[in-house]
């Protein structure tokens, strides 16, 4: 009896496992179906279509003409495109180095100085405004006869005044870097404040006991403690600088003198919508995808974290 019962029980267990597995799969299916459906239709399909079109010459209305890899060779031979790519890389580097700003501010605010909640709120404002508005404002602010100029003259920095900041190729891109840092630091402040709050305070006391000064405790306690957030935010800034700068550049300088402040996304828009080279534009898009993918993979590999673990 017991052996029969045993077999029966064993059978029941196996059945349960398989049914359980199926039930899990079905639940997962149900939970994921809307997401997967929408993403397949509106994200994956267009990308596949874009990849296909990048091998053609197409103006959007007549039939596409297959041209193989010609768009890609045109892409690599276009000096303006490479200048724009360089700008992307420079702005990305600036944004990542510029993480110092939210870091310092987070440390300051962490001490809960008077009005810290208000500061935290106000610093986030630029992130809530449309880039078009930000662009219009800053291009007016930095005019050679604008408020910034008035400010410089009030501070007796006359030698700097009447400078064409956004129209001079040597200063335009640096200013755009500043404006981008200004637009995004608020979010960084929040993230870093959260991270600092999570650092074990005993570590600081231990560091003091060991005779560390402020810089050393910063370097050996704060920064390592914030490392996951720093990596996370770096990746976000990297993606941002390669995929979301269009509106800013468009509103600020339109690409600047020549292409000195253009970014690769801007080149895509111009090729596709001014020149109506849909195939070439798609090739640029594929190119951006490749670059971002390579860079993100590089960062993740260096930081030694696998995809699923990079949560904060």
């Amino acid at each position, binding site marked *: 009896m017991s052996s029969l019962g045993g077999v029966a029980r064993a059978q029941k267990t196996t059945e349960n496992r398989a049914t359980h597995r199926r039930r899990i799969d079905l639940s997962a299916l149900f939970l994921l179906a809307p997401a997967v459906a929408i993403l397949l239709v509106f994200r994956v399909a267009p990308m596949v279509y874009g990849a296909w079109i990048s091998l053609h010459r197409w*103006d*959007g*209305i*007549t039939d596409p003409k297959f041209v193989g890899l010609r768009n890609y060779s*045109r892409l690599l031979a276009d000096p*303006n495109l490479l200048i724009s790519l360089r700008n992307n890389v420079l702005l990305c580097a600036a944004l990542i180095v510029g993480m110092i700003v939210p870091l310092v501010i987070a440390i300051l605010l962490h001490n809960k100085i008077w009005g810290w909640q208000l500061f935290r709120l106000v610093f986030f404002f630029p992130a809530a405004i449309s880039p078009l508005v930000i662009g219009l404002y800053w*291009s007016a602010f930095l*005019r*050679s*006869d604008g408020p910034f100029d008035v400010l410089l003259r009030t501070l007796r920095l006359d030698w700097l005044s*009447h400078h*064409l*900041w*956004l*129209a*001079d*190729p040597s200063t335009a891109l640096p200013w755009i870097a500043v404006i981008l840092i200004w637009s995004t630091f608020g979010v960084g402040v929040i993230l870093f404040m959260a991270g600092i709050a999570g650092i074990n305070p005993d570590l600081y006391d231990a560091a003091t006991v060991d005779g560390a000064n402020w810089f050393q405790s910063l370097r050996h306690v704060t920064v390592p403690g914030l490392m996951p957030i720093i990596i996370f935010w770096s990746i976000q800034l990297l993606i941002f600088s390669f995929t979301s700068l269009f509106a800013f550049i468009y509103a600020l300088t*339109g*690409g*600047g*003198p*020549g*292409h*000195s402040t253009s970014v690769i996304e801007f080149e895509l828009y*111009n*090729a596709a*919508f*001014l*020149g*109506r*080279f849909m195939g070439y534009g798609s090739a640029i898009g594929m190119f951006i995808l490749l670059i971002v993918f390579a860079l993100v993979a590089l960062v993740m590999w260096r930081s030694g974290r696998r995809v699923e673990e990079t949560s904060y």
Partner: protein
Amino acid sequence: MIRVEAVRVGVGRGPRPKRAGKGTLTFALAALLTLALAACANQGTGGTSEKPSGKIVVWDFNYNTEAGKSYQQVDSNFIAKFPGVTIEHVAKPAGEYGKVVQAAMAAKSGPDALMLQTPFAIKDYYTLLTPLNDLINADMKSQFAGWGGMNPDLDPNGKVYGIPYSFGGTAFYWNKAVFEKVGADPNKFPTSYDDLLALFKKLKAAGITPIGGGDKLGIFSSWWMYAAIPGVMSLQDCYGLSNGKTKWSDPRVKRTLQIYLDWIKAGYFAPNQAELNAGDFSGFTNWINGQAGVVWAFPGYRPKLAQDDAKNLGTAAAVIGIDAPAPHFYMAGPTLGWTIPTWTKNKTTAWEYIKYMTSTEAQQLHLDVDKVGPSNIKVDVSKADPDLTATFNLWKASPGNEHCGRTFKVDVIVELGKQMTAVEAGQQTLDGALKVADDIQAQHA
């Protein structure tokens, strides 16, 4: 119970776990309801299919702007003529109009009556536009002088795909008081290059910036080309720039831009012109303040420039003879066209609409209210601002004259402008800039 304990311990600082039952059910229902509402909401918009009562959808980029104030009147006049018709007039952003049209063309869905920037858009999209030859009678043919621009090859006797609309050209505006101050005739404007140079030298010597205006993105340099190209080549050669027959690196083109660069070096422009927009008023600030003598802009800018000082404002058609005392032609013509895309389901109403939109009556309104010049030669321009009258009459006198600058490929002229800013900043040579333009033009071949 163990479960409750575990949850409390685990959550700790977080919010208390809610009674999930009612809350989440409501939430799910709300989500479903809003989705259903969204699905239902789209029923009422109608899109582009016509109703039996005769609805048409109209797209242009003037409707919500100063250049389209008369449109509401035009639309109500039309409805009064044809009761039972409804018009959905949609204002599109001028700066994005190319994208919007392109997306509509790619999706083969959009309005019943579509305003296009011409002649270049006709060449781009004529395969999806209805040819209008059968609908245009001889009377109408003679009323407009811009039919060439409605044909992809600029042939006025070929298939036309739209009705010409709206007149554009370039005009010079000057500050009469400033002219008097430096001893120039306040009522005349130079028509030859040498006279123009002499004028600028006079202004400069008197401490006045000769030319006001902004050159952000090199747009101002393009506007100068519109005034100067007629001084160095024929109309046919100018058309050649749109299809590669005339190279951008042609020495004649180079000459016009070299003049511009020389003027920058000579200090004839405002020192901060590179950061000012050509098209928004900040480009003319120094002119308004009496600190600059001359600007070039478009006919119809007069009311904006003459805000407080109409009597002091001199205007003339922007034509300059460079290789000869007089220019070869005047760069002007209809800049827009009303078309009927092939996907329309209400061709009859759409045709009546664009016929009315371009009629003498409607364009008279457009002129009187919006200060925009007509393409219809029957319109009375005598009472319009002098710059409009002058340029329009010039154009009327030279039949077959399309606005050559509007035939240029958009990306080529935009890129040339950008390259010019690089040249002005010392990062590019003029030859290099023109070569870039040629390279892009070649991609279109």
